[in-house]
């Protein structure tokens, strides 16, 4: 038997091992932002509706760490995360919202229906901020420290067990 005839078998076994391993692993679904530990980019967004002011980078600088919540009234998981955002707000966290491709009346009625945990909401109609901070979907939540640096990204809706995690990180980056 010449060793050269073992090469195809070796390559196949390598593939089979890799494929077998990957079958046991949870499929990577998220595209994590590469902007963690980077300063929040410069931005200024108009108010998403009449009730609250818009948002800009300077709103994140000074005082306490804050949450940046990317959401939209048309997004179903955002309804699910609304009560958890309320709990964060009750715990004294300042949450600044950015609503994606949304109409003012839709934003207002969403907040009426599901509660308003935000101090400000900026309207991002062309996903400009979303792309600038490496967000790939709605909803996503970022922890921004008092110097205006991005410290943590949570992809997807906030659930019961995410709340203490976020509070812990907010405490850590203080």
């Amino acid at each position, binding site marked *: 038997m010449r060793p050269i005839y073992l090469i195809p078998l070796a390559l196949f076994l390598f593939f089979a091992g890799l494929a077998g391993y990957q079958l046991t692993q949870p499929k990577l679904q998220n*595209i*994590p*932002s*590469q*902007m963690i530990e980077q300063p929040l980019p410069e931005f200024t967004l108009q108010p998403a509706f009449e009730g609250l002011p818009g948002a800009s980078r300077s709103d994140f600088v000074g005082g306490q760490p804050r949450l940046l919540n990317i959401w939209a009234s*048309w*997004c*179903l*998981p955002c309804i699910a995360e609304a009560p958890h955002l309320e709990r964060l707000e009750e715990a004294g966290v300042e949450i600044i919202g950015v609503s994606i*491709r*949304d*109409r003012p009346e*839709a934003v207002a009625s969403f907040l009426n229906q599901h509660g308003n945990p935000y101090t400000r909401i900026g309207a991002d*109609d*062309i*996903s*400009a901020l*979303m*792309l*600038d*901070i*490496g967000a*790939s*979907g*709605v909803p996503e939540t970022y922890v921004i420290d008092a110097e205006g640096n991005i410290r943590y990204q949570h992809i997807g809706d906030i659930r019961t067990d995410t709340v203490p995690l976020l509070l812990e990180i907010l405490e850590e980056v203080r």
Partner: protein
Amino acid sequence: MMRLLFALLALFIGPTLTMQQTFAQQAMPPAPYAYVQLEDPALEAEAAELMGTLRCLKCQSQSINDSDAPMAGDMRHQVRTRILAGESPEQIRSWLVERYGDYVSYEPEVSSTTWPLFAIPLLLLAVVGLVLMRRLGKRRSDAEEVN
């Protein structure tokens, strides 16, 4: 270029959240340059070539140039406005890669995670050359000897 449907696929993409989102978002007009070309054909050609190699982040495996997803439209808007502002396609690509990693670009660059993609074809080239030399080069002299 081509997205859905190919091979055995009777592909099953369920009516997922993305789909419902697509419906709801139709209420908002798309970003100005999502479906509008740049005036200058040379700039538009640059943009189109770049957009064909950027991955739509909300889709399964489509470039932003081939997708109706609203976020793909917003990415096209970014590309076109940045090209118009004088940025080069490679600057825009690295701007996106800085934010999303290599995943966003269909054009892998040589890096610590992608070097085998380039090393293996080179190795292959060497192996192919070797195989052909052995198979064809030596055979000739063998054949002459046999004859």
